[in-house]
């Protein structure tokens, strides 16, 4: 019956209150004893958590944003650019046939666990990716290997401080690819210590050492005081996960973080008006586009990534007769006001695209004159193509924002209204992202929105991946317009085999002229990359590869 007694209840409540007070009082001493923080700690607001902290086994930017502080490669991109400079290698030599690259390695460098950096570590870091019999091969998917590094036949130790990379084919993009995070050098001792769990105990030679990872919350790294270039200026970096852009902005305004990525372009005015904040912005290495399904792809039955004579062109599931007609595709290009989309929907933080790769890249053809916004001309072309009354079609619109497409839904609606004005009646179709990628790569769409962010700063990484006929393989097509011009493919293949940069650039320029005339895509925009820091953060440099390097960064009080 005690539970019915109000006196007992009162006593219980009183006991809880007294306990609460006692706990609070007993802790009050601890609060006062906390020493003031004097370290330079930068808390960076990230849009997501890392997948893994093994640089060779990730594709997401959140993972590489962390691993780039911990690991280094043989070579690296010069700060703010895509030119190559030595890093853990002090120099290299490319054989006359372009198939052997010999690297001299830096002496006296140690991994964070004390292991010496040497040729064995380099060979291990590559071997585990391509050699299925390497005991550590089973612990990763190595997603970039066959895509970017399949031309590597072997990596061999010459002596403790010299390694040789042997290539199957001449590959002019290989040196830039070697500056990618994928081929960072990892500690073999650490890999042996952790086995399958090495991805959560990263150990490299970089300026910061891994401290802790609280899933979906934060990752902490601290200064590597023995770093071979000298200790970094920051004592710690804490990468904190704040998924919502509004919440990230509020956090930096409240002083809880000192840096953040992917600010909402709608808040730029608010950021620039805030005297405590600085907005860093520069053209990004990306392109956002509309792809019109040209109608034919192939089944890559031998899975070699190229179309062979016994692999015939077949109709894509999304075959749509009007888009097989060049005049119709050109009409769509004329019908869309790209400047207005960039100004109003990209909020000005992008430039209008006229080619399929960003203007700062090797081989960009600036002589090409973009299709101007001209609905009258579009209607004329449609009439000429046999569609005087237009037609109905479906535009597939991405369900997620990407750096090259800030607001796909609104962009899709804008395109719908522009095309309606020339009697192309567009229905918008949206489906979740995994399905979207699977179905567009299988060619199920008549037209779709998509884009690309470059991996290594090399033009091949745009031109061949997105516009080559070999990339029209149904199911995994990179060329989602299924634009199967074999002449363009020949030019792109010649380019990748040419070390002479002028000649190489020339191949890409020619290819862009043909692609422009055939108009399989409407190139919409190259979006800027934007970061926000508090004013006391100095020395951060934006890179075209959108990678974050905090080594030169300092904080003033």
């Amino acid at each position, binding site marked *: 019956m005690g539970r019915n007694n109000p006196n007992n209840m009162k006593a219980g409540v009183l006991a809880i209150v007294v306990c609460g007070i006692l706990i609070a009082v007993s802790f009050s001493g601890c609060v006062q004893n906390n020493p003031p923080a004097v370290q330079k700690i930068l808390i960076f607001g990230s849009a997501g958590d890392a997948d893994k902290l093994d640089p060779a086994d990730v*594709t997401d930017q959140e993972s590489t944003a962390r691993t780039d502080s911990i690991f280094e490669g043989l070579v690296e991109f010069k700060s703010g650019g895509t030119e190559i400079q030595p890093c853990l290698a002090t120099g290299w030599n490319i054989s006359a046939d372009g198939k052997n690259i010999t690297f001299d390695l830096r002496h006296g460098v140690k991994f964070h666990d004390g292991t010496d950096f040497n040729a064995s570590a380099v060979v291990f870091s590559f071997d585990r990716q391509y050699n299925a019999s390497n005991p550590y091969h089973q612990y990763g998917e190595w997603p970039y290997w066959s895509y970017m590094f399949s031309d590597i036949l072997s990596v061999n130790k010459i002596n403790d401080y010299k390694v040789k990379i042997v290539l199957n084919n001449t590959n002019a993009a290989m040196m830039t690819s070697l500056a990618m995070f994928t081929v960072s050098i990892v500690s073999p001792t650490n890999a042996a210590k952790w086995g399958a769990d090495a991805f959560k105990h990263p150990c490299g030679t970089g300026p910061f050492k891994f401290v802790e990872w609280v899933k979906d919350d934060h990752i902490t790294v601290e200064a590597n005081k023995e770093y071979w270039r000298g200790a970094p200026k920051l004592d710690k970096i804490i990468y904190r996960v704040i998924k919502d852009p509004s919440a990230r902005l509020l956090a930096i305004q409240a002083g809880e973080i000192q840096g953040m990525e992917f600010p909402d372009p709608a808040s730029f005015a608010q950021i620039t008006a805030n005297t405590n904040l600085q907005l860093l912005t520069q053209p990004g290495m990306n392109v956002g586009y509309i792809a019109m399904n040209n109608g034919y792809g192939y089944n890559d039955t031998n899975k070699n990534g190229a179309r062979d004579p016994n692999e015939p062109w077949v109709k894509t599931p999304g075959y749509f007769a009007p888009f097989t007609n060049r005049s119709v595709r050109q009409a769509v290009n004329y019908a869309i006001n790209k400047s207005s989309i960039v100004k109003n929907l990209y909020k000005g933080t992008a430039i209008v695209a006229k080619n399929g790769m960003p203007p700062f890249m090797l081989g960009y053809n600036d002589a090409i004159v973009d299709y101007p916004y001209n609905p009258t001309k579009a209607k004329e072309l449609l009439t000429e193509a046999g569609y005087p009354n237009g037609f109905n079609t479906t535009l597939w619109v991405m369900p997620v924002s990407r750096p090259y497409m800030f607001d796909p839904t609104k962009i899709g609606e804008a395109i719908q209204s522009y095309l309606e004005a020339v009697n192309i009646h567009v229905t918008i179709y949206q489906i979740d992202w995994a399905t979207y990628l699977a179905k567009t790569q299988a060619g199920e769409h008549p037209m779709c929105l998509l884009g690309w962010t470059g991996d290594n700063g090399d033009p091949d990484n745009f031109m061949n991946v997105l516009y080559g006929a070999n990339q029209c393989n149904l199911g995994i097509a990179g060329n989602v317009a299924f634009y199967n011009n074999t002449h363009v493919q020949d030019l792109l293949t010649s380019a990748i085999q040419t070390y002479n940069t002028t000649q190489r650039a020339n191949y890409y320029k020619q290819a862009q002229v043909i692609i422009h005339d055939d108009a399989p895509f409407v190139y919409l925009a190259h979006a800027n990359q934007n970061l926000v820091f508090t004013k006391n953060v100095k020395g951060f440099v934006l890179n075209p590869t959108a990678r974050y390097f905090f080594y030169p960064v300092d904080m003033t009080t």
Partner: protein
Amino acid sequence: MKWYIIKRLLQIIPVILGVTIIAFSLIHLAPGDPARTMLGQHATQQEIDQIRAKYGLDKPLYVQYFIWLGNVLHGDLGRSILSHEQVTTEIASRFPNTIELAITAMIFAVLVGVIAGIISATKQYSAADYTVMGVALFGISMPVFWLGIMLMMIFGVFLGWLPIGGRIDLLIPFHRITGLMVLDSIIAGNGTALVSVLLHLILPGIALGTIPMAIIARTTRSSMLEVLRQDFIRTERAKGLSERKVIYKHAIRNAMVPVVTVIGMNFGMLLSGAILTETVFSWPGVGRLVVDSVYARDYPLVIGCILVFALVFVIANLITDLLYTYIDPRIHYD
């Protein structure tokens, strides 16, 4: 009672089997697969096939299910395809955060909701009643995301009273033991951490608790009104008992059965994560985990989360049913 509990616990088995079979089928029926998500836009067919083979995704669906079930019976939920982490570790690292947030939200919802409901019922058609019901309507209708941002702007940025996201001030050294950070800071005797953790719970707790609070307030009000109209209350009053005693000693207890049902159901839901609140307050809970894993088609993680949610719901329902016997002695299970 003992047999009733055992019977209910045994019923968990078919429920879990049913839930996992449905979840397994649905997630595999959805187009897209983890290999593609993992490899991105540049995947080759060979790589996709290799990954599918590595994770057994090339086997028939029923074979995959039985392999999974066999592993679960050995206590192995597998590894996340995307992060390579043990599914149990992934869930265990998020679940304590969700529990703490759910408890905070429920404390707020029950305290405010029940009191508001009682005031509203006892002062029916008064200004207080209209105010409480107006606030309740507002609470139910308000988008959590918007409420969260408003709370952050007002209390975090303008007033600067409360932290606006995360679990703790990251500059405070903290050692995780159980994952329940309030408990961990008490165990460690770390007062600075305890204060910080509690402060970080306030805004997300209010944001998440607002809708349950509104539901509880409305349920309490209608239940109280019904009880107050019953004969035994008239008898109590006729006996000369004070209005205070009539309400607090007799009416509330009788009005609590539907309220407890609502609390139980809401608590079960809160324990399965709150994606919007977790997103806006950067809260590393299971809601975000399951949504991210569905998008990534991370099958082992999705099914692992659903298994845990099903267990939580079944157990929350059982506890609710058992609470009825405490509140209303007339209810008993044989």
